[in-house]
């Protein structure tokens, strides 16, 4: 990592660290929230700083094995934090929660920047610890235990896999290590048969931290950076097939859910499975499509989960069995929910369309049946999010009081929606950067296997 990269990493670490330090030093109340919002805005600006500084053209300064990938993923993590800080209802976000979101953001950005496998294991375990610590209350007992069991297992597998791949025991051990890393990634991403914990933590835990924990997709990142160079093509293809089955399964189950939180959980399962599937396919187009989908679905699903949280704060738990109404009293939220939904379903003029199309084409190119399952998953996902929209916003007019959004909430949702639309209409810059990252990822495949 060069000096520019170190300066950038240090600048990125300051805002979330400031929030954590302020919490540790006992700053509380409104001042703390203002500090949180300010730091999140500064972080987004710092994350986007390399773009106007022309550091994008020569990503070698980053010293990252996947070239310019961190230049997309780091702003993505920063945006997720900004979205969280702006739109989480104050009743649901105390000072400790805000500090934890800063810690998760810091750890996610650290993961996306590091080329060291052991640091990645540390950051991975750190996010798990922060998530589990955020569910200390007895009401979240089940979510805490489920997450602890699954995530604990994933940390052990990841550490074992990294040990086997990095200690140079031999190609066979490296392949086993890659398999263990892929297993850890599958658990973290909720790939069949390790999927059950994701909807569970959405339903029975806190939905905001669940979204913040799931949206950056560290499992996918670990699979791409740590496992892909050592794994055999057959293993990668097996993971792809399992991920596509999961994508279809998650979308189908999301479509028939009765609870909005659980529905969000299955949508996360489906979308993150699609991303992982594309990254493990041998096609570069599928890989780039997956990288785009990573950003698009992460932002859109985090936004959708926050919309559900905002609605819950105003009118309690949201069932999908009936129509809750209130469209006329919260048009901005309904419009943003619609745009985020469209991005999830891959509607034209959203970023999801570009990613989805490229993924489908790449998957068909590899094996037509796989491509068709991506299409089916997309169709079910579209129906699931639209059903959610109809259920949450359509129906009676007198849907309770205090439904209008706060200015910060409107700004946060509006920003996410505009980003997804803007990048969908003018995706060339983003695609070019991710295409280079995809080329680097394809080049690295099998490199580990070739070692003596």
């Amino acid at each position, binding site marked *: 990592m060069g000096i520019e990269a170190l300066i950038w990493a240090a600048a990125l670490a300051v805002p979330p660290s400031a929030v954590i330090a302020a919490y540790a030093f006992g700053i509380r109340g409104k001042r703390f929230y203002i500090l949180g919002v300010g730091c999140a805005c500064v972080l987004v600006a710092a994350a986007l700083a390399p773009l106007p500084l022309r550091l994008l053209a020569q990503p070698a300064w980053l010293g990252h094995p996947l070239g310019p990938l961190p230049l997309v993923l780091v702003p993505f993590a920063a945006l997720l934090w900004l979205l969280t800080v702006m739109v989480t209802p104050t009743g649901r976000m105390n000072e400790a929660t805000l500090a934890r979101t800063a810690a998760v953001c810091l750890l996610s950005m650290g993961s996306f920047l590091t080329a060291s496998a052991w640091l990645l294991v540390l950051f991975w375990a750190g996010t798990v610890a922060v998530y589990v610590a955020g569910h200390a209350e007895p009401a979240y007992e089940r979510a805490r235990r489920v997450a602890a069991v699954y995530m604990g297992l994933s940390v052990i597998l990841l550490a074992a896999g990294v040990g086997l791949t990095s200690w140079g025991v031999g190609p066979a051990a490296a392949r086993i290590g890659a398999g263990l890393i892929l297993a850890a990634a599958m658990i973290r991403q909720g790939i069949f048969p390790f999927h059950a914990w994701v909807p569970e933590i959405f339903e029975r835990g806190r939905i905001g931290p669940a979204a913040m924990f799931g949206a950056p997709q560290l499992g996918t990142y670990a699979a791409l950076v740590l496992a892909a160079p050592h794994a055999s093509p057959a293993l990668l293809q097996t993971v792809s097939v399992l991920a596509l089955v999961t994508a279809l399964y998650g979308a189908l189950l999301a479509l028939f859910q009765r609870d909005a939180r659980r529905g969000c959980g299955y949508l996360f399962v489906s979308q993150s499975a699609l991303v992982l599937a594309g990254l493990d396919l041998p096609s570069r187009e599928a890989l780039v499509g997956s990288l785009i989908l990573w950003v698009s679905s992460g932002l859109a699903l985090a936004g959708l989960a926050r919309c559900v949280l905002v609605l819950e704060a105003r009118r309690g738990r949201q069932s999908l069995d009936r129509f809750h109404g209130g469209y006329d009293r919260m048009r901005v939220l309904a419009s943003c929910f619609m745009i985020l939904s469209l991005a999830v379903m891959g509607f034209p003029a959203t970023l999801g369309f570009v990613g989805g199309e490229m993924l489908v084409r790449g998957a068909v190119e590899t094996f037509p049946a796989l491509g068709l399952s991506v299409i089916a998953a997309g169709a079910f996902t579209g129906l699931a999010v*639209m059903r959610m929209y109809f259920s949450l916003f359509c*129906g009676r007019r007198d849907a309770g009081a205090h439904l209008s959004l706060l200015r910060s909430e409107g700004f946060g949702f509006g920003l996410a929606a505009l980003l997804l639309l803007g990048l969908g209409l003018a995706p060339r810059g983003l695609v070019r950067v991710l295409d280079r990252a995809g080329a680097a990822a394809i080049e690295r495949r099998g490199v580990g296997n070739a070692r003596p």
Partner: protein
Amino acid sequence: MSPDEALRTAVLACFAAPALALAAVAAPSFFRRPLPEGRAGAIVQTGMLSCLAALLAAALLWDRAGGAPAVLALGGGWVTGGAFAFDLVVDGWSLGFAILSVAICGVVSAFSFRYLHQERGFHRYFILLVAFVLGLLLVSLAGSIEVLYAGWEVMGLSSALLVAFFHERPAPVESGFRVLAFYRIGDACMLAAAALLHHWSGSGSLAMLFSRSGAEAALTPGHAAAIAVLLIAAAGAKSALLPFSTWLPRAMEGPTPSSAVYYGALSIHAGCFLLLRASPLLSQSPLARGLAASAGAATAIYAALVTRAQSDVKSRLCFSSLTQVGIIFVEIALGLKVLAFLHMVGNACYRLLQFLSAPNILHDIHELENDLGGSIAQAGAPAGASARWLYLLALERGFLDGMIERCIVQPVAQAVSRLDRLDRRLCGSLPGLAREAADGD
């Protein structure tokens, strides 16, 4: 300015006009400052008229240039390296359907401006209508399959949201969702066709697909048949052909002007137009031609039967329209392209007139009945057991809705519910949670 540049400018202008109108009406509504009705209506109508003028200018320029099909690459490599081509094709068919579409939407927007006066969703209606026009323009002028798919999706979503226009009541929303579900089947088929076309021919160019020599050169007969069957399924879902017909009466929940433009005039004919464009592909495959003809014929018979037993005017009109759509499919399958296009134009205009005048006619009939003091309808019960059975079959629209519910929706819902319970049990069986799960059960 060269003739090519002038044509390109005119075609771009026909997209820009409704896009600007859409932005002008949608943006203030998003920021909770909706425009006054008069201004919003004027903007939309100006957008429609400008679009129509641009299309007529494009038609004139195209004719002067010799009338040969022209491909306009408006955004070559829009995403990267030409992977997504934003190509438009300008020829007689595309311009004809685009002009018809914009003219009809313009008439309907003028009608709706008064019909929906002071309606709560006034702005939402016009936003969706203009989005529909944009979708139709994309479908009409599509030169690459990505553009076609984008337009297809925009049309579908705007259509479903207009069915659910009166969203304070559950029935329209449920109908809107059901319509969307059928459209998604069509969209999935379209996307599959797009991906397979790229895979097999290495290009998404519709100019190639729409010319007989191009299609023959780029695709083997088997591949051509597979893509043609997928396109027939996509067209069938959009045009409510059997077995997708059940969404059509549900779509009547929307406002009458939207029913007129979508299910009387344009949306229902979009499938016919797609098949008309893809007829060189059909001609390569007897299987696809047979499928299109049989689906069209079966739909025509079914819809003709159902029309006669419907009790409300909108359902009756939409099934009448569907009867003609079925016949148009047969005509396309037989290779009668000009007849099919003229039939499409005639049916669209005639149904539009019927839909828009229906509320007035109903009003006049009610006035007349009030004056006469009784009903003027003279409906007799069908005589004979078979006639009664046929009547019941027609009245219940062939029991298709119930069959789909019983044979597809319910079994899938039950299977999914079982899987969901299994997932919950799996988590409940984890160490430390087994007791809680047992208590819960």
